[in-house]
């Protein structure tokens, strides 16, 4: 079993959490990452510039029909849902907000679960609403691996708590421990396949 993608969902406090999570990942990190941060619709590209300064992966807003590639952290553009298609490309939609959110974590996670099945890691970080828990459940149901930030140490606990209530998650970890766990999972899965 080899992981083909990582999806991250977070809201309030999420920018710092994503920075921490990705800070030590190498520029050629072998698994593509897609993230939904609940951003204000008028968020400008500064966010991308800022993240690119602080982490080694290439950070960019996911574009419609763009191929998912390793070494990249794709961010869902503000005011669009981000979905993944069977051919490993992104698609965007302006469907109604889900959980009052567009982009919605559930939308990304559910489509990613369909495409990557057990070959995906879904991560829910700090946040002040319930978006993402149903998406994480779909990932779990399809055999993927689920990680939730420890609600006791997360900046905002509601989103992690909602996910834990909805899904029997595989790992509940402090933000500093998540990167190591991800590395360990990748390493272990590589050993199994070779």
């Amino acid at each position, binding site marked *: 079993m080899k992981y083909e993608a990582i999806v991250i969902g977070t809201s309030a406090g999420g920018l710092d959490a994503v920075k921490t999570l990705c800070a030590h990942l190498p520029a050629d990190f072998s698994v593509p990452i897609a993230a939904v941060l609940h951003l204000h619709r008028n968020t400008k590209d500064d966010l991308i510039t800022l993240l690119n300064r602080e982490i080694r992966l290439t950070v960019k807003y996911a574009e*419609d029909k763009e191929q998912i590639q390793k070494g990249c952290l794709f961010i869902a553009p503000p005011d669009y849902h981000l*979905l*993944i298609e*069977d051919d490993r490309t992104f*698609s*965007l*939609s*302006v469907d109604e907000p889900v959980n009052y959110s567009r982009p919605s974590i559930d939308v990304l996670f559910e*489509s990613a679960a369909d495409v990557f099945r*057990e070959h995906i890691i879904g991560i829910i970080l700090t946040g002040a609403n319930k978006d993402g828990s149903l998406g994480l459940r779909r990932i779990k149901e399809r055999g993927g691996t689920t990680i939730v930030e420890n609600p006791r140490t997360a900046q905002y606990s509601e989103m992690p708590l909602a996910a834990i209530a909805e899904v029997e998650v595989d790992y509940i970890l402090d933000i500093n421990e998540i990167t190591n766990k991800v590395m360990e999972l990748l390493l272990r899965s590589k050993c199994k396949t070779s």
Partner: protein
Amino acid sequence: MDYYDDNDNENLEVMLLLEAVNAKYGYDFRSYARASIKRRIRHRMSVSGIKKITEVIERLIYDKSFFTDLLGDFSISTTEMFRDPGFFQALRKTVFPVLQRLPFIKIWVAGCSTGEEVYSLAILLREEKLYEKSMIYATDYCNKSLTTAKEGIYNIKSIKKYAANYIQAGGIQSFSDYFKAEADSAAIDPSLRQNMVFSIHNLAADGVFGEMNIILCRNVLIYFNRELQNKVFGLFTQSLEEGGYLCLGSKETIRLSTYSDNYDEMLRDEKIYRRNSAPVSYSKPSAHPVATPEFVTKGGELIRDVKAKMEELDYLLNSVGSLPGQS
């Protein structure tokens, strides 16, 4: 439990469902981006308490009203007035001054859904004193959306949100002047509808649409797969006059299509392209031009075109009739 099998089966079911919809009702969603379509099918399943997509297929074949609901799910698209205010401001400042020179302006709003952008455009044209010489063709494949668009009655809560967009877009009036408010809805000033034609047109199946000066098609193409996107760009290129403008949604681009060379980038961030004079090579000329579905729709287009011309003529005659000293 083997997850692989499950998912492959589901993809097969979705494919069969879309084939059934096309064969039975003539709506072709086969080239739509699948992930969104799947979400919408699942939505209908949870509303109707259906467990398997195969059951959805059975229901939609035998139960027309069920199909109508599903079609409604497929056509939902959330649109708002003056979405991306920066775009409308750019239209006002950069594109409209060029249009001042034209004797007549033809605009096609393709995939107009419930009409919010059509009216935004009309307001903008009126404020720039271009409305009187404009004709807006608003099309959508969905009759229900088109009916809402024609009525122009919107929820009062949404209107409040649109008002903020309008101001950001550089609106120069009081936004409420364009509406007649009721208890919880607001009806758009009917005079904004004077130079509008609403008609059914399916981008996935129907043909070209007159010589346009502007084509506005925002956040529609993201729902199509790459192949259909390219086909529609071909359609737009054929329908646009040289020097005409193509306006796309903020996350859409013509750059990945085979028509990229036929456009200059006017405003990159606002996704406003201008058709240049480069020769067009249409990607797939039909091998059998006779009796293809395209050929049949061509006839329909000709009729529609004639109708549009007559409407223009009507309009011109009317405006002559209302000149001072003529009545």
